[in-house]
């Protein structure tokens, strides 16, 4: 498969990951206006630092990363992946206030982010000429298969 096709897949997955995070945030806000953790940065529920806020803000960053992937798949997919990691860390690092419902909203973005990284990796593998030869298919045969000429 051509590198350009992998690039497109990576970008689309990145954009979809971001959109799914944003959609998750909007849905959460719709069904439960104060979705998030009351008092995380103060006594009152704060939209900016709530579960809704994190999903939408990080989702926007992921969409930007996905769009960048069309031109620079490595940079774009890295932005998408790091953003997803931050989002998950936000769920994780809440001490006793860790809020599990937020994790469910990250399921679809996580899978799409992982796919974006995989496709970006395949695209990079196709584009970069490795040491000692031309680029080989990413999913093709690889690894120390010796030929007769190489065997001592």
């Amino acid at each position, binding site marked *: 498969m051509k590198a350009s096709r992998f690039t497109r897949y990576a970008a689309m997955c990145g954009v979809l990951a971001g959109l799914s995070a944003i959609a998750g945030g909007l849905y959460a806000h719709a069904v439960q206006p104060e979705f998030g953790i009351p008092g995380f940065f103060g006594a009152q529920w704060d939209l900016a630092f709530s579960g809704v806020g994190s999903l939408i803000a990080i989702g926007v960053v992921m969409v930007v990363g996905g769009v960048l992937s069309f031109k620079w798949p*490595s940079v774009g*997919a*890295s932005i998408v*992946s*790091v953003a*997803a*990691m931050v989002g*998950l*860390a936000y*769920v*994780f*690092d809440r001490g006793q206030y*860790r809020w*599990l419902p937020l*994790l469910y909203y*990250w399921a679809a973005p*996580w899978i799409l*982010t*992982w796919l*974006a*990284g*995989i496709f*970006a*990796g*395949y695209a*990079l*593998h196709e584009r*970069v*000429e*490795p*040491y*000692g*030869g*031309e*680029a*080989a*298919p*990413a*999913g*093709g*045969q*690889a*690894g*120390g*298969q*010796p*030929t007769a000429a*190489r*065997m*001592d």
Partner: protein
Amino acid sequence: MATGTLNNQGLKRVRMRLITAVIVVFTLTCSGSFGMEDVVSSSGPGFTLLMIVILPFLWSVPMAFVASELASSIPEAGGLYRWIRRGLGEYWSFQGGWWWTLSLYVDSAVYVALALDYLQGYYEFSDLTRALIGIGVVAVFTFINIRGLDLTGWALTLIQIGVMVPLVVFTVLGLIRGTGDPFHPVFSGDGIWTSLTLGLAIMMWMYAGWESMSTLAGEIENPQRIIPRALMIGTPLVIITYVFTVAAAIMVAGDGGWANMWTGGGGIDFVEAAKIVGGATLGYFMLLSAVLSNLGLYAGYLATGARPAFQMSRDRLFPRFIGKTHKSWGTPWVAILIMGVVDGVLINFNFDALITIDVFLLMFAYILIFVTVIVLRNREPDMVRPFKVPLPTWALTIYVAIPIGIAIIALFINGIDWLIGGLIGILTGPVAYLIFKSVYKGTADEALEGSAVTPTGELTDFGAEVEGARL
């Protein structure tokens, strides 16, 4: 290939006797039964013993078989990383190598921390003393590993003698003098599902590590023969060790005492059980055994954990300096040293958050290994396999589907912290590949350094023409 010659990666192959190889495997997969106490109180005594007997055939025997087949046909430094490369290509091999290495970096530090916890609990020394002892331990084992596998093998042999002698004495005394029924009750009281989920995660951990020795293949003479044999001998040895030691501990705990079996103080662990059945002296030696068990695990995983990073560097997917070998000792000293330094730092901090990525990453790497063996069976049916799992490919596919299923279950039963940490850890793989591949470019398949097995089962080197390689 004569002992002491440097192969085309600058690694020196040492002659490892089968008994030493078995001890290495035993260290990496068992090293005593410390930690099993928690399974007993979580799952119930009968079910614990049942899991000890049954789980290996669903979890560790498949991995031991698969590791034997792959290690015999692709006996290269970095082991599993190179297997996956051969089967699934560069991208997935990097992922497998990265996840496995990341997991081992954290995992190995845990063992030193546990050994220090045991000592500090007993001798009650200060945190500063703890830190100094920890750094000293890491430094000693780092040097031993850099010095070579022959010295590492000797160290592990001595350590396992220190681990097993008290355990054997305890087991004999426990089986004779113990009064508890090791099979009653079967479950802990909350039914089979609760017993299973609570105990399975720990039990899987206790039965892991069969793939680890393969990473040393570049530094052992005839690895294609030694490693499979060691794995086949080590498997029943580990099962027997667990069955008898745990049964003895349950019996020593007495009627109903199993419910109080746990590690970490306050419960009946192996040390307390040894005091009950053999007095303070046996208790002291059991403490020593527990400390040595963890140090053995550390020494073993320091050896195996550093090799994939070395090989990935040689394959131009990691910084080049990590792939340097020692001119005289023929070991990947930079990779080992880096792991030692990381461990030396980690043990002095609370790295609970890092541990949460551990299981998840390892399980994903395991799944890649199982997929690899099936892909290679189908794509390279004529590949030289000095050891071949005695199953046709379709049956092997069904057989490895079982541990893959268990691995997937394990992702979700370890707790929510582990799930979130693992999900974050998995995403580091693609990012790392994108960075390192962009910077270092990788190596084409036809230019890889390594070893191959000839149709007669001998080992040959190839790739010597690669820049930087030495003969």
